[in-house]
Every structure is written in structure tokens, then in C-alpha cells.
């Protein structure tokens, strides 16, 4: 069984930076890779700030944080990941980009190194295909923001060995995360349920059944959800919802997964959600209207 001491994370976006925080906080030597030096600097800054807050809140000691930051490295070359026992990729959600990355890493990393993908929509088996170590590739889908959310959906691909999957599972638990096992199926559990549900919400609005604020109130007061689906869609970004729909519809051909016409119209109109100041609700800085 692989003993994991050094963790590589590919991609210094929000997800990758968050996963690197999780690894560093759990006491692993952590190497964050990105080709963009600015993204790496930003991730390091976010990590320092997050861990400092953890000390303020009494969750970590200053000594733990000092040790974590001493063991936290960044690199802009793949060779910098040569010492890693596991590499988790959180790069752009595109099959060929991920396949190419794992094929290159296969030449850089030792035999025992496990490859994990944080994909939310793609097939683990397909990502692993052709990389040269298909038996040591697993799905590890963290939730956003990774440093706060415990859940990790873990999936073996068709060629993943039991040994590799067990090692990755034990590593996930050692990170202090809560793994759940799912099949290598589109969207695993979370997005499989969420993406079409959110589309149904958009179709209800489009059909004139109810206004966004009434739908959100129903969901929160009726079911006890913390956030209404329209608020959530505004947070996810309506353009991102289109990408999720396209990825899902492409593999499932389920009409519920197809992007509703209203979603396309809203994106075309620039109503992307919080990031553009307007989606199902209007936002003036962080203030919400219509709710």
C-alpha cells in the first residue's frame, strides 16, 4: 500500500488552492502546480490568510500553521511534482486537457504515485484512458470551497485497482475529509441530482408557474434547505450552469439535463448571476433584492 507523504495538486484556481489547503492543514508536504505564477502567488496568500484565521478561531496552533507553510511549495513545472505520492488534478474541466496532463505526469512521477481527478462531470475511466497507469487513477471530487466542505465523492474507474482505491480512500480520511463511494457515472451523486433539479426550477420560471423569490421561499421553508435554488444558481453562475448542462446532456441525453431556453437567453443578456450583478435576483454589491 502506498504511504502518502507528499501531495501534489494541479491547478491553482479556487478548487486547486482549496485542496492544497486541505492537504497542508492535514500535515502533508504539499506542492501546488500551475503554469500561471500569479495564480500560485494568490493561492499561497489565500492559504496563509485561511490558516491564520484557523489559528484565530482556535482550530490550529501557530506551530501547526508554521509547519504547514514550511511544507507548502509551489511550482510552475511538472517536474516539481516528481516527489509526490499522490497528485490531485483540478485543472480546466476538459477531457483532453486532463488526459494530456496525466500522460505527462506518468513520465514524471514514480511508479507508486496515485493520480486523482477532481472532475465533477467527466468519466474517471475516460480521464485515465491512455495515461499509462490506468489502474492507479481514482476520482476524488471535493466540494467548493474544499477547505470548508468535508464531502469527497470517490469513484473508481473501470481499470482502477482495489489497492489504489483503498489507498486513496485512506488518504482522504487522513485529510480529515468524509469520503463517499460512487460509481464512475456522470455527475456522481451531487451534480447528478443538482444540475437537472436546477434546470427544472428554471423551466418552472419560464413556464410562468412562480417567481424566483417564491420558489426559493418554498424550498427553504418547505424543505429546510439553507439556500434556495435561484440564489444557488446565481452563485454558481448561469454560464457555468450552461457548461454543466452541455457536459451532462452530452453523455446522458436526458431532457432534464438540457439547458432550458431561458437559461440561454439570460446568459446572452449578460444576466450571469452574482458575478455580473444580475441573475434571477439583482445584486448591489452583496445586497440581495427580490428575495
Amino acid at each position, binding site marked *: 500500500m502506498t504511504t502518502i507523504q507528499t501531495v501534489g495538486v494541479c491547478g491553482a484556481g479556487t478548487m486547486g488552492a482549496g485542496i492544497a489547503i486541505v492537504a497542508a492543514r492535514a500535515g502533508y508536504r504539499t506542492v501546488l502546480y500551475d503554469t500561471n505564477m500569479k495564480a500560485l502567488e494568490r493561492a499561497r496568500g489565500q492559504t496563509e490568510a485561511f490558516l491564520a484565521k484557523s489559528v484565530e478561531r482556535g482550530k490550529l496552533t501557530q506551530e501547526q500553521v508554521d509547519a504547514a507553510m514550511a511544507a507548502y511549495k509551489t511550482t510552475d513545472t511538472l517536474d516539481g511534482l516528481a516527489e509526490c505520492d499522490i497528485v490531485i488534478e483540478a485543472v480546466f474541466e476538459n477531457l483532453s486537457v486532463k488526459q494530456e496532463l496525466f500522460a505527462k505526469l506518468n513520465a514524471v512521477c514514480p511508479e507508486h504515485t496515485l493520480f486523482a481527478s477532481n472532475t465533477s462531470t467527466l468519466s474517471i475511466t475516460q480521464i485515465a484512458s491512455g495515461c499509462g497507469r490506468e489502474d492507479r487513477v481514482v476520482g476524488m471530487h471535493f*466540494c467548493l470551497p474544499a477547505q470548508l*466542505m*468535508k*464531502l469527497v*465523492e470517490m469513484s473508481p474507474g473501470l481499470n482502477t485497482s482495489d489497492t489504489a482505491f483503498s489507498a486513496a480512500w485512506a488518504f482522504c480520511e487522513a485529510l480529515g475529509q*468524509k469520503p*463517499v*463511494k*460512487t*460509481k464512475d*457515472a456522470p455527475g*456522481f*451523486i*451531487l451534480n*447528478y*441530482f*443538482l444540475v*437537472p*433539479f436546477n434546470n*427544472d*426550477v428554471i423551466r*418552472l420560471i419560464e*413556464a*410562468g*408557474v*412562480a*417567481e424566483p423569490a*417564491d*420558489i426559493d*421561499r*418554498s*424550498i427553504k*421553508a*418547505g*424543505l*429546510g*434547505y*439553507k*439556500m434556495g*435554488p435561484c440564489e444557488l444558481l446565481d452563485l454558481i453562475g448561469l454560464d457555468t450552469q450552461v457548461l454543466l448542462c452541455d457536459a451532462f446532456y452530452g453523455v446522458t441525453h436526458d*431532457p*432534464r439535463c438540457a439547458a432550458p431556453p431561458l437559461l440561454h437567453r439570460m446568459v446572452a443578456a449578460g444576466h450571469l448571476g452574482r458575478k455580473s450583478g444580475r441573475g434571477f435576483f439583482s445584486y448591489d454589491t452583496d445586497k440581495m433584492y427580490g428575495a
Partner: protein
Amino acid sequence: MVSYSIVDTGDSRSFPEDHPFLAGAGAEGEVVAYIGFGAVSSWQEDPSRTAILVELTTETLGEATGESRGEEGSNTVGFARFRVGDGVPSDLVELVRQPHTDAAALEAARMVLEGAGLQVAECFDFAGRILDRLIRPYYNEALAKLDEGLATADDMDLTVKLGLGYPEGPIELLERTGLHHHHDVTQALFEVYGTKHYAPARRARVAKKRAERGLS
């Protein structure tokens, strides 16, 4: 304060037990509320009222009032307190309107319901209203994925609780509230909309067959 009276037409899904809404009713009032299973068939036109509330289950308001050329609407509104199967009714009331429902009737209905501590979400008169229409396909999918072995029931429930912050997972919720009730609601929606996502999942059909034989 808007005064209201209640016409009791049988067991009520919205108010199975004592509630401030029932306690607050008088003998007469500006508003009258028909509650219970016979509400739709007992409804009577009464232009002298500011609002007439009709409790709905799987029916629509138009079945009481009639519909005409997309111009229907009066002082009558529908309502249903959201509840899954045998679960305790929530504080959420779906208030059902038609295209030309009187604004004053909607306002009076809202005041009466909110005055009893309930939250109101307004929607137009379509089967399943807001919540059943949204959650039934999700429950059917969860049941189907359990059959397909996507994950264990516990892991599916845990995933939506940890990942989405839902208070309860779909499988435990359906077990708690009665899977055969889910069958009945989603079957009614399937008959109206005809799309496969409302078709009762296999496990719900099994639960329904057993319930018909008096088994749980």
C-alpha cells in the same frame, strides 16, 4: 386583522392537528376558508367575500372555479400547506392564483395565513404547484439510482446533506414519510404532464402494492 371563518369539509392534509389558523377563525368573516378533502367539491361562489380560500391536494383550483379562455380569476384562491406523505406539515403554504385573480383576495389570503405564522409562496394554478413539481423527479431519480447501484442509500443521503446542506437525504425522507405516498403524488403528476420523470420509480410502485395489501 382580517376576519375569517372556516368550512370544514373533512380531514385536512394542511391542518391535521390544532393550529393557530384553525383557532383564529370566527363564525363569520370577510374571508372564508374551505378546508379538508371535500374543499374543491364544496366550494361555492360568494362575491360578498374579500377572499375565498380552497384547500388543494393534487387538484387544481380551476376544478372548483372553472376556467375560461385564460381569463379566469376571481376572489377565490387555492392553498396547500406543504407536506410530504405522513410527515408533519411545514410552515410553507403555496397560495394558488389564476391569471385574473383579485389582488385584494390574494392580499387578504396572505394576511390570514401569515397571521397564523405561516410563510406564503404564490404560484399559478398548475398541478404539483411549486414543490411537488420540483421534488418528485428528484425522488424518482434517487430511487432509480439506488436500484442501479450508484451508491448506497446511506452514502446518497450523506452526500446531499454534506454537499448541499439539505437537512435530510432523499431515501431517508421517503422512508420516514411513506414511500407509497410518494407513489400517489408522482403518479398524479405523471398523468397530468406525461413526462417520464414523474413516473413512479420501481421502489415506489412496490411500496404502493404492499400498502394496498395493508403492509408497510
